[in-house]
């Protein structure tokens, strides 16, 4: 009985959200009839642009470039963020010394960083976007992991010590599992940041990648291409979020559920 109700709710929710999307599409279609395609291309024109992108191979080429940069900058930030968090949690002195700097890094808006990066590295193909991703996502990762470390239940560590567990075992079976959900949340939070930063950086300071192609479309007044890319980006993020991160999150926090 209970399950059928929740299933019904799920179905209703799906129908509602699908309806929402259809309404937006219809609205977009109607609205575009009143404007020049330069200002608001119609859904059909956008779809044709998308098809052209696909056929020319530019869709995959640019996506791959951007993806590679995001991955590089972001894994660097992940490793560095985790390492710093671990280091700071074991050394009060380092924490007091560097914590404010990390906070300041986080407060500085990305625009400032990108301008600085262009000044420092020029319109470098890889360096500028990768630097921006790193500098923007590093504090996010650090703060998440650090708060994760602080939230480890020390009473469980005491229990493990009373029962003579080795330090290695305590690290692997007490600290690590407590940390995993924080790592996953750091990854998913940081990743959407990372994507946006890469594209932003490519838009301003690079000569390849999705951001650069968008800036070209902008310069050539190809608004329908902009729309096509927006759709590609939305789809990519959705695939990441619901195809990878949500299932991963569910898996690592399996023990939290009561079923």
């Amino acid at each position, binding site marked *: 009985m209970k399950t059928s109700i929740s299933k019904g709710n799920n179905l209703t929710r799906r129908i509602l959200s699908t309806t929402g999307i259809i309404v937006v599409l219809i609205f977009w279609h109607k609205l575009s009839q009143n404007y020049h395609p330069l200002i608001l291309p119609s859904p059909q024109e956008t779809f044709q642009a998308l098809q052209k992108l696909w056929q020319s191979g530019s869709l995959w080429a640019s996506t791959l470039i951007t993806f590679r940069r995001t991955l590089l900058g972001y894994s660097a930030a992940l490793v560095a963020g985790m390492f710093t968090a671990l280091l700071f949690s074991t050394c009060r002195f380092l924490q007091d010394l560097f914590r404010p700097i990390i906070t300041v890094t986080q407060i500085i808006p990305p625009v400032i960083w990108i301008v600085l990066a262009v000044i420092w590295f020029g319109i470098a193909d890889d360096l500028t976007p990768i630097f921006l991703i790193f500098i923007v996502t590093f504090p996010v990762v650090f703060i998440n992991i650090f708060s994760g470390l602080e939230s480890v239940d020390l009473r*469980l560590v005491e229990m493990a010590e009373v*029962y003579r567990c080795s330090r290695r075992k305590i690290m692997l079976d007490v600290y690590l599992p*407590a940390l995993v959900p924080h790592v996953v949340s750091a990854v998913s939070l940081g990743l959407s940041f990372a994507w946006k930063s890469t594209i932003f950086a490519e838009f301003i300071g690079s000569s390849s990648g999705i951001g650069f192609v968008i800036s070209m479309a902008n310069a050539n007044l190809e608004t329908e291409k902009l729309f096509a890319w927006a759709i590609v980006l939305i789809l990519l993020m959705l695939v990441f979020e619901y195809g990878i991160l949500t299932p991963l999150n569910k898996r690592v926090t399996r023990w939290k559920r*009561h079923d």
Partner: protein
Amino acid sequence: MTKNTITLELNQIHKGFKNTSGELKVLADISLTVQAGEIIALIGPSGCGKTTLLNIISGIAAPDRGTLRQSPSLRLAYVFQEPRLLPWKTVEGNIRFVQDNFLAAQEGKEVREKLLQKTGLLAYKDSYPAQLSGGMKQRLELVRALAIKPQLLLMDEPFKSLDLALKFDLQRLLLTEHEQEGFALLFTTHDPDEAVMLADRVVVLSDKPTQIHQEMVIGLTREKRTKTNPHIQENVERIIRVLLERHI
């Protein structure tokens, strides 16, 4: 029952905590000897330092003064006042987490499954703590402690908030295991009946700064103890009198 080997010796233990208004003296001069195989009940007002004392014995906390003597290879198990289970490990995983430090895999499995069977948890061995009731978690704590075949078992109010039938079942299980394994047992309680029915010796603690107020040896063998036995009743009444003294 009591052999003449000493499992644990506490000598003039002192312990205080710093708080906003200076120092809070908790334990003031506690000396206690636990013989191998002996069952001792600690009873005393809330906040007098029973948990603190068990924490000192288990090595979680250090005394400010005094000495603690025990064999370095003493196998100690501790049933905490509130369950301390790893939420990401199953019932079986939680037991194995501590058991693997002491027993070989085969023996461990036998001991574990026997205890799970006896406590009615065997069907739940693949469940996570979040899926257990409060009483089940308490049972699991007890199983985990017994599963390492300890020489000294510390238990902090192990039978609180259990339904009557379950409480008696667990006490019976504990006594059977004690009979077979011969570990020393030191447990805290607020229930004079429980103390007198289970222990060889009842140690009544005063309020802070805490000292040993009185020690009672319960002479009867456990089979002879019933709530209506005059010796038992007399001891229960004595404990109640001592505990209430300060409140008159």
